[in-house]
């Protein structure tokens, strides 16, 4: 298949988009793709560009100079703008304010409502939070009449309750 843009080289990059309600696939050779900023999807996903853009929008230059680099992994705001990737868990604390804005735009929320994770060496407070999470989960399973799952969750609750008693 030849490149849609130059019509000369073999197309290697295939981009499917929805434009004005129509699904369209563009086939491009690496050279033309690079020209359009789509070279090597695995290296430079449109998502990265999107994130980088959001990073820029979310961070005024003043904020950018205040935050970072990450004291643990040395990731700078520019690194994040370029790659759309954070360097380590600690980055989430360093760039907390900025990330909150970004997360809200990506997910429409900043609050994790899924399972509450308890690390292996957990504190009593972690366990209570987890127990509360499991009880909510049990409630939902019962409401959904998924009794098989409810039984599994009930066992997890028992296990955790015994652990707390000890």
């Amino acid at each position, binding site marked *: 298949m030849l490149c849609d843009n130059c019509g000369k080289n073999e197309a290697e*990059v*295939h*981009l*499917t988009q*929805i434009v004005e*309600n*129509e*699904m369209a*696939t563009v086939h491009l050779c690496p050279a033309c793709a690079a020209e359009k900023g789509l070279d090597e*999807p*695995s*290296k430079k*996903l*449109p*998502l990265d560009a999107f*994130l980088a853009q959001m990073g820029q929008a979310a961070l005024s230059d003043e904020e950018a100079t205040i935050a970072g680099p990450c004291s*643990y*992994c040395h*990731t700078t705001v520019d690194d994040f703008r370029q*790659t*759309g*990737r*954070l*360097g*380590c*868990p600690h980055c*989430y*604390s360093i760039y907390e304010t900025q*990330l909150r804005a*970004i*997360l809200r735009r*990506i*997910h*429409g*929320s*900043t*609050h*994790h*409502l*899924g*399972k509450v*994770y*308890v*690390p*292996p*060496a957990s504190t009593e407070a972690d366990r209570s939070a987890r127990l509360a999470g499991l009880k909510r*989960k049990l409630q*939902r*399973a019962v409401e*959904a009449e*998924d009794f098989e*799952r409810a039984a*599994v969750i009930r066992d*997890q609750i028992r296990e955790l309750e015994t652990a707390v008693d000890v």
Partner: protein
Amino acid sequence: MIRFDLESMPDFGLGWLDASGPSHDVVLSTRVRIARNLQGYPFSVRAKPSDRAAILSTVREVLQRSAPLADGVIVEIDQLGERQQQILLERHLVSRELLKEESAPSAAALIASTSEPVGLMVNEEDHLRLQSLMSGFNPRQTWRVVDALDEELGSELPYAFHHEFGHLTSCPTNCGTGLRASVLIHLPGLVLTKEINKVLQGISQVGLTFRGLYGEGSEVVGNLFQVSNQTTLGKSEEDLIDHLQKIVAQVVDYEQQARSILLRDAPNVIEDKVWRAYGLLCHARALGFDEMMNLLSGVRLGLSLKLLSGPSVYVLNRTMVFAQNAHLEEARDGSLSAGELDIQRANYVRMALTEAEPSAGA
């Protein structure tokens, strides 16, 4: 843990092909993956080779004690030849990210259970990507298997977790639950009735997204779409799974309706299309991959509409996997030019399809 050997395990990771799952005439497979990172190490993008090696050895040690994976197979990517790496990719067992070169795939590994359809990638974009792939439309069960593995690993390995943001991932698009659930769905009816764009638009408005056969950035071929949740934060895992279940069930309904309409309004056109696809697959002497996928789509539709009585959906699924480039090269034990690949592909397909000669359906 056993070392990986393609020779001795030809069906490795292909349990989903058997078309045993719910709605398997529309939904080929369901995949669930969750992203996890370990505390105390930088994310993969910043990890040094020593970090990566430490992560892999920690995970291996814990897995020795974990029920579903103690008897698992470990595949260390840098010990495989390029073709074998491609085979794993063609089987959807690893991502391009895991194989990609610039992050030096040192200590990158796939670990898979031999008894259950569950496993994990180590040192991918995130330290761990727990995953399961099952036949048909089965988000809840697929999630349960991954969840069980997560509970087991998480109770021994300290994950990077934030009280507000949940599980922390290298890319903020995955943080929170780290959960991506997707179905590989065959929608020829909606494509032929030209309703597909409406449906794809619809799903994107309710928080789902679609991609081609090989995930991000890949092209849609053979009327196969991968539909998955768009967001990972702000909803519980069950809600994300239930939402996908609900919306995809509707898409399956629309697809079935579209197929009935086609059969009612243009039975001769559809029958002709199906048999032509079948005829070409049985007799062509050279087949490109996209061409094959489009023709297989026609045969798959014919089976579902009972216009053909064979081959089985299993044969079609298997052909989709085994008639890909790296699989064909492996079977011939040598690299093939593009032209030779197309010839070998046609040979493979012809053999696979004519083993069980169909007759006109009811």
